[in-house]
């Protein structure tokens, strides 16, 4: 498939940004669906980067394949726990590595396995995500667009001080130790302004 001369030319045109939009969308969809074509696409980028003497980091195709195989191999249980479903929201945004790390479901079997086991991930694929995602929340990889990186919140001494003092006090609580400092040290994201509403009514809404 990827040996077709016309297809190579199309890939090359795609890399140069010279393919018509409709053709580009069609080709990107094929790259998503055909591993051989994806490998060709990657080789093309590698060759171009080498020519330009760029230092690039390519994804480990073997690792990605193994994760993908693991995802496919997972049977889709009828009663997917809320944890497994919801774990993916943040993990997709974090990329495949974070997905493999966090979207884990605890193993209930304890039989030792001889081969190294990749982190288990919930059985979803990009088509599934595209169907479930609210508009603007998640996008298919084939869209070739990324959400903008969260902007760091502007430094505010008073606000930082409240969080820091809370962390310092909560370190002696049962879920203490280093845990209360984690959100203090992590890069704060600039949150969209939260409207000042009557907090009493917000609190009432939270009651069951």
């Amino acid at each position, binding site marked *: 498939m990827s040996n077709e001369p016309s297809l190579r030319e199309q890939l090359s045109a795609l890399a140069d940004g010279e393919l018509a939009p409709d053709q580009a969308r069609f080709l990107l969809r094929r790259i998503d669906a055909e591993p051989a074509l994806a490998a060709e696409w990657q080789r093309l980028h590698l060759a171009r980067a080498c020519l330009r003497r760029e230092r690039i980091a390519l994804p480990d195709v073997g690792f990605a394949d193994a994760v993908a195989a693991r995802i496919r191999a997972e049977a889709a249980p009828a009663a997917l726990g809320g944890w497994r479903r919801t774990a993916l929201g943040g993990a997709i945004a974090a990329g495949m590595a974070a997905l493999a790390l966090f979207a884990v479901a605890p193993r209930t079997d304890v039989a030792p396995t001889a081969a190294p086991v990749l982190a288990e991930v919930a059985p979803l694929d990009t088509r599934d995500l595209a169907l479930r995602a609210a508009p603007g929340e998640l996008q298919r990889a084939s869209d070739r667009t990324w959400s903008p990186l969260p902007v*760091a919140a502007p430094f505010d001494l008073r606000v930082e001080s*409240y969080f820091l*003092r809370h962390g310092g006090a909560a370190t*002696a609580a*049962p879920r203490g130790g280093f845990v209360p400092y984690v*959100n203090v040290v*992590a890069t704060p994201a600039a949150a969209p302004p939260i409207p000042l509403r009557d907090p009493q009514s917000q*609190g009432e809404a939270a009651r*069951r």
Partner: protein
Amino acid sequence: MTAGALRRAGALLALLASAACLAQEPQPAELLERMSRSLQSLEYEGVFVYVHEGRVDAVQVTRTQSPYGPVDRLVTLSGDRREVVRERGELRCLTPGGTVTASAGERFALLAPDPAAVGRLQESYRFTIAGRDRIAGYDATVIDATPVDALRYAYRLWLERASGMLLASMLREPGGGPVEQLAFTSLRLRESGLVPLDEAAAPAPAAPIGWQVADLPPGFRLIARPAAPEGSQHLLFSDGLASVSVYIEPRGGGLLGAARRGATHAYGRALDDAHVVVVGDLPAATVARIAASVRRDG
């Protein structure tokens, strides 16, 4: 012995072995007490990944014990360099925008967890063992803590099987998605050799003077009154998993409205000549509700 008898004996042995394993499986309350003790008394060094608000941060953490209390150091390995250091009762947060310092309060000695505090958890959460897993090379028992109301987060905790050390955690909005996830990718644990003080023997913190927090979620109790500048009060409440700070300060320059760091929310409001700020590991609506309930005595 015949082949059939051997098979039956083997099956019986397997049954006995699995029963023994189940009998040895610690209960959630015991595991949580171990977690609390480990987080306080162990020495550890590792790297964890923290997912929050659409960001992924890698953070290096070191905790050592000294005769003056624990020494904590957390440094981000991704994004801007940020660092939190806690030593000899002083807290420093170093960021590209500036450095914030604060007193870590009087409770900086090594404290053993109060078993009663862990026991009280049952008032606010239902605990189940979700299974077993492996994080950063350690075998983990996975515990789900499901809140009894919609006022706090649900927790999934990965606890190291032998020590109870927290290896990973996920906090989830009531009926919603994850708000914060943390998992070690590498970790080294050491016994510190220091004997913790008995926290249960410490005197209960005095009630706030002139103020009351009228509407705390059930299960929350005042557990500390950390040091605060003159004319201010800092009250720390906890339900055993979540903690919330209430700051009551003279009016002027404090937080107005909402702010957020991961799963921790803050809400500030002016109240007569005072300023009330609530910071807690709780959903935004709960934090706002607590802030709204702070009022003067009488």
